[in-house]
């Protein structure tokens, strides 16, 4: 039995919220703008809605299999071998996400602040930080996330408020595109895979049971998505569709515009620290999840022996893409089409089978439902 420690409500919220907003600091707002044009407000709202529905599916699954993680639940529902297969798919997904996270954040550091540093040095730094944090467990990562949350939220809110003099509200117009359903459909397919919806289903024991895990993840993902939506609209109002969609790191560029008088300018290094916190915390969490999933599949008493090998695997995968555009392209596939399999299709499939086969602790006793 794995010992995961205990995570409080605020700690859990901070952990999932921080992990959820990481895309904001990379190319996500620019990609959203490229696809949705000035209708980004509607396309991302729909993406956000689909993500919340995805979370509801996970919560329903957690509710039926109250004291088990998705890994154990899939074994209960599909049997030992198919359950292992599901677990391996989830592990592979998190390992790939971790690897792309390593690479994306390393590239972002190189582009913004460390242009002369070899990427391997930055990758090793992120990987080392992740392995140290994951070694101490999710309880420690969540506590650090709770402390960092204030600085991260302050950082984001400050950037958004201080760039207000640069915005042009008219950039939100025209409000629509010619084929809105097609654009919304494409955006939902490309951006609504949010791996954070799986987090409560994987560490529900640490969060104090499925009820707390559901509540925490609901608010964290709702707030995280809303922050991304607001920030993306602000970026649109600052750069316009044409200017904004060509940026590699739009939020970083927004922070570079901050200037109040002669003294309050060149503030982006301050904000970079908050973004670094987000990157380090998310990589620590995902490394932890990757190893914990494997430990649960193979019924290992401890996940720590796997940390080294998983980190090395992530490092190797991270360094494989020859350039940043290839990384973005591959990440797009992982986030988009392929990502739907572990994040949406598998939980939905498990839920349907569980209902059909009348499995789970609440099966046949609706009076016990909360």
């Amino acid at each position: 039995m794995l010992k995961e420690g205990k995570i409080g409500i605020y700690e859990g919220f901070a952990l999932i919220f921080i992990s959820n907003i990481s895309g904001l600091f990379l190319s996500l707002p620019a990609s959203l703008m490229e696809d949705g044009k000035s209708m980004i407000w509607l396309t991302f709202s729909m993406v956000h809605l689909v993500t919340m529905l995805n979370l509801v599916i996970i919560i329903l699954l957690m509710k039926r299999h109250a004291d088990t993680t998705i890994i154990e639940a899939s074994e209960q529902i599909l049997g030992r071998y198919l359950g292992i297969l599901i677990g391996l798919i989830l592990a592979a997904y998190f390992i790939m996400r971790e690897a792309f996270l390593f690479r994306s954040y390393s590239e972002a550091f190189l582009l913004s602040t460390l242009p002369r540093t070899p990427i391997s040095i930055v990758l090793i730094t992120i990987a080392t930080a992740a392995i140290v944090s994951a070694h101490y467990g999710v309880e420690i990562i969540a506590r650090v996330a709770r402390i960092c949350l204030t600085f991260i939220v302050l950082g984001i809110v400050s950037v958004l408020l201080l760039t207000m003099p640069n915005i042009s509200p008219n950039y939100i117009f025209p409000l629509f595109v010619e084929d809105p359903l097609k654009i919304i459909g494409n955006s939902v397919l490309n951006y609504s895979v949010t791996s954070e919806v799986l987090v409560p289903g994987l560490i529900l024991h640490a969060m104090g049971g499925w009820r707390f895990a559901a509540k925490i993840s609901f608010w964290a993902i709702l707030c995280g998505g809303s922050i991304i939506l607001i920030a993306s609209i602000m970026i649109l109002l600052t750069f316009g569709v044409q200017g904004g969609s060509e940026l590699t790191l739009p939020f970083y560029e927004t922070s570079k515009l901050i200037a109040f008088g002669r003294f309050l300018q060149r503030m982006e290094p301050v904000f970079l620290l908050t973004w670094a916190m987000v990157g380090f915390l998310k990589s620590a969490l995902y490394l932890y999840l990757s190893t914990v999933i494997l430990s649960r599949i193979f019924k290992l008493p401890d996940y720590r022996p796997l940390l080294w090998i998983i980190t090395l695997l992530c490092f190797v995968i991270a360094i494989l893409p020859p350039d940043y555009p290839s990384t973005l392209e591959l990440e797009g596939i992982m986030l988009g089409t392929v990502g739907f399999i572990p994040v949406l299709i598998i939980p939905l499939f498990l839920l349907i089978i569980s209902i059909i086969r009348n499995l789970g602790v609440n099966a046949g006793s609706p009076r016990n439902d909360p």
Partner: protein
Amino acid sequence: MGKHGNKILSMILLLLLLPQLCGCTGGRETDEVALVLAVGFDKGENSPLEMTVTIANPQSFAAGEGGGGGKAENYITANVEGPSIWECYLLFNTFGTRDISFVHTIAYIFSEELAKEGMDKYLHALLRQREVRRNSQILICRGTAKEFMKNNKPQLEASPNKQYQAMERLAGLTELSPSITLHKFYSTLKSLHSSPVASLVGTNTGEKKASKQKSPLLVPYVAGEVPQEGGSANAEFIGTAVFRDDQLVGELDGTETRLMLLMNGDFNISTFTLRDPKKPKDVIALRLRQAKKPDIKIVSDKEKLNIHQTIYMEGEFLSIQSGENYEGTKRKKIVEQAFNQQMQQLSQALIDKSRDHNWGDIFNYDLVYRKQVSTWEEWETLNWKEMYDTAEITVEYKTNIRRPGLMRTTNHIIRG
């Protein structure tokens, strides 16, 4: 692995992270960097581009034996020719001891000649680089940027950097020069339909120019033509460079710049002088600010657009030479009406000029029209230039001289 083994491993890993705290392998010490204050771009004689930089000289600020900075110049101006901006950047590092950096560059100055050929390729090159700040100023220089930067010797400031900052601040008090950043210029350029503008700069020849002022309300000068003598620098910041897409196509003088800023809603405060409506030999001076953003109403009929703009101004009397008591509620209306009428005529003339010279919309009316367009595709294919050229545009001024200054009335001198 036991508990001790884990602790030792964690310690080793944490120690591995420590070297990163000293700034990674890409760190640069301040004494390794040459901070470029301003960059100028001209057409080269033998290469496509000539780049001039003004670099802060740390020797002049270093404490010497006497406690001062010695006799070294505060800044150094150098130039080099090359095929591209970043090739020139590279070449600068072959004859200086320090790595040049654009992190603190406050102004990018383009020569007229280069601007006429198109700015797009240079802007892309600048904005792609992490050192370049989008809130740096973009200036268009009459003549060459090299000559401007060499002749620009601000006597009241320690460096041109401070001068550019001061001129940007002063532009908000004179409104004879727009304050345009790289971000603003590029955003307008990319907004699909407006014509971008930039500040115009130039140097005077040292000779006092003849005054061209036909009416006191006009400031008919562009940079290099101000009838001044003994100013604190050879550089002048007045007028606007007008672009069609990314190419320089025209200039606005001081009056026109002020009108454009008023119509754009970017006007802050300035001083206006007009003929006394009752005693035309005398003048009245007013300090006026834009009371609120202009109201712009755009109505489409089948054939053309009807644009009606209302500009609101408020302020105070600075001078009434004739001694007429215009301060009262009824009599101040005479001045307000005269001012509104003259400004209206000047604005209409500027709109006509922008059409005659084929400049396109320099007043950003397209930003307002965006609200009437329902889809992005419609907006992308809109022929705004033609719509602007055929539109019926009327400009109305509503001025309220709220305060009389520190004299509430003017009494006549009692002569004995």
